[in-house]
């Protein structure tokens, strides 16, 4: 290996004590806010579970720089597989934990319907995450590092989703007649205009005609731990992840590893090489392990709370507490019970547009399924805010927090990339977490299809960005 051991320790900034102080202030504010919620009604503990798990996710995401965009992009942009390796290790660990949670009876995962929309959604999402400089989850943790460009990405993800979920007008001309006919036959409440709006007709006329399944359900394997471990976890998540890891080792890392070990050979040597590749991604792998354990624990705790309050959805609890504004027709709100990113951001955008007088509840996405609760009553939304705060706590402790104002180029890329991610995540039914990470680790192959789309989109976007940089360099007179 080259002399990376010669790196001097990072110099500590004199104001590190200030960072600790700010981190303590943020943590204290989270505690005080939690106590205020509980003093209003103890049933808000359900929402606070989301919030506190969000804080924990934020710490791990920032620690491991856990970023799907980086996993795909750095491989194509600069030949660096570090994040791809880390994410795949996280997939393996989380799949095992999901199987255990499934056996415990608290797994709230639902398989995604299989169809062409997944690869198209993944492709748009992949384009967007490379342009934006981060995926859905990393935009949250980077916001916590003080990156205001990432705030713009969140803004763009939120409003693009809200727009797509509710818009009609010229978008109706893009709807196939078959979707409209099928949607019209759906027995929907009168408040919902399901034959007006692209996304409503996509949902009722196309998505609802599809089905999705996990491997265990598809082969009707017995509902026990071994089926979950060897069916869902091993076959759907672990083996494909290992194959990709071996490909990354063979075609990328191996040439780095063998450079200083020309006299060695054999299986043990290759295995040490694979292990060396893993250790290069140590922080991301540790983050993946932490995220896996806590994402599983979140399912467990939320499941227990649902049992305790005898509810299926947080909307029922909100109704019991007389918070009726923003509930869907079914008295439900978005409440996945596990790690999720984009749908709550769509709700933020939708809630704000509704505040401006735009009708946002006459569609399936908000009106029937997810509702539009006030952001202070949006449990998954509070998880996202928790992620930002958790990342801010760690970034301040490590001295990495800095307010960063985006330049014009970054503003444009953030808005365009965020919009593509928002639209891609609605079409693909989730982001890098909901449509990829949560699916493959629960035995649903749709996530690998989404990843394939993300890789194609990411590859195209990397080529585009490199061409853009080369074009700018050629015009600038820089001698790069």
């Amino acid at each position, binding site marked *: *290996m*080259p*002399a*990376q051991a*010669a*790196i*001097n*320790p*990072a*110099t*500590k*900034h004199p*104001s590190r004590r200030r960072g600790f102080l700010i981190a303590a202030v943020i943590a204290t504010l989270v505690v005080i806010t939690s106590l205020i919620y509980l003093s209003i009604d103890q049933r808000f503990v359900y929402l606070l579970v989301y919030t506190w798990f969000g804080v924990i996710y934020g710490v791990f995401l920032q620690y491991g*720089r856990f*970023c799907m*965009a*980086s996993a795909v*992009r*750095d491989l194509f*942009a*600069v*030949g*660096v597989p*570090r*994040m791809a390796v880390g994410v795949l290790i996280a997939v393996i660990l989380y799949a095992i934990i999901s199987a255990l949670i499934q056996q415990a009876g608290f797994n709230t995962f639902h398989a995604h319907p299989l169809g062409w929309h997944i690869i198209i959604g993944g492709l748009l999402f992949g384009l967007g995450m*490379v342009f934006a*400089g*981060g995926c859905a989850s*990393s935009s949250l943790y*980077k916001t916590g*590092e*003080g*990156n205001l*460009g*990432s705030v713009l990405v969140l803004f763009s993800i939120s409003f693009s989703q809200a727009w797509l979920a509710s818009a009609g007008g010229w978008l109706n001309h893009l709807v196939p007649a078959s979707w409209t006919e099928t949607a019209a036959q759906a027995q929907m409440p009168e408040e919902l205009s399901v034959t007006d709006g692209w996304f409503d007709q996509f949902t009722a006329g196309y998505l609802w005609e599809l089905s999705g399944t996990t491997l265990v359900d598809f082969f009707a394997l017995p509902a026990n731990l071994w089926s979950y471990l060897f069916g869902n976890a091993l076959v759907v998540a672990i083996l494909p992840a290992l194959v990709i890891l071996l490909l990354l080792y063979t075609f990328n890392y191996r040439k*780095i590893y063998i*450079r200083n070990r020309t006299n060695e050979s054999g299986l043990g040597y290759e295995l040490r090489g694979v292990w060396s590749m893993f250790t*290069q991604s140590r*922080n991301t792998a540790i983050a993946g392990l932490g995220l896996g354990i806590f994402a599983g624990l979140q399912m467990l705790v939320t499941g227990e709370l649902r049992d305790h309050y005898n509810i299926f959805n947080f909307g029922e609890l909100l109704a019991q507490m007389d918070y009726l504004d923003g509930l869907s027709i079914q008295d439900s709100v978005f409440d996945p019970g596990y790690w999720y990113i984009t749908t709550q951001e769509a709700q933020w955008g939708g809630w704000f547009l509704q505040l401006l007088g735009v009708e946002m509840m006459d569609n399936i996405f908000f009106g029937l399924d997810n509702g539009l609760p006030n952001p202070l009553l949006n449990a998954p939304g509070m998880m996202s805010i928790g992620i930002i705060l958790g990342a801010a706590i760690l*970034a301040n402790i490590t*001295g*990495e*927090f*800095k307010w*960063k104002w985006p*330049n*014009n*180029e*970054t503003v444009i890329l953030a808005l365009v990339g965020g919009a593509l991610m928002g639209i891609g995540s609605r079409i693909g039914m989730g982001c890098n977490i909901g449509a990829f990470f949560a699916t493959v680790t629960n035995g649903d192959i749709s996530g690998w299809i989404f990843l394939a789309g993300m890789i194609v989109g990411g590859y195209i976007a*990397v080529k585009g*960005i*490199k061409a853009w*940089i080369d074009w700018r*360099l050629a*015009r*600038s*007179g*820089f*001698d*790069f």
Partner: protein
Amino acid sequence: MAIKLKETVKFEQQSDNNWLLDVKGYGCPHVQIYAEKALKKLTSGNELTLVFDNPSSGESITYLCTANGDTLLDRQEDGGTFTWKIRRA
């Protein structure tokens, strides 16, 4: 709204063997791409002082140096701004 590269990126020779690349304000993947291009420009033994403020880019640049055999001589951090010195292999 003109976007001029020389207003946002600084790449200049400081002395015979030392170059400076300042890409503060940029996130991923711009920092990594500019760093890779700058390192390719340098001849063996030359040193690059890289200034950036996107923490996650540092992870990729570390790996990039390992892959290319370049040496990370020094890493300094000052209030979220990173100044790294890299010697070209």
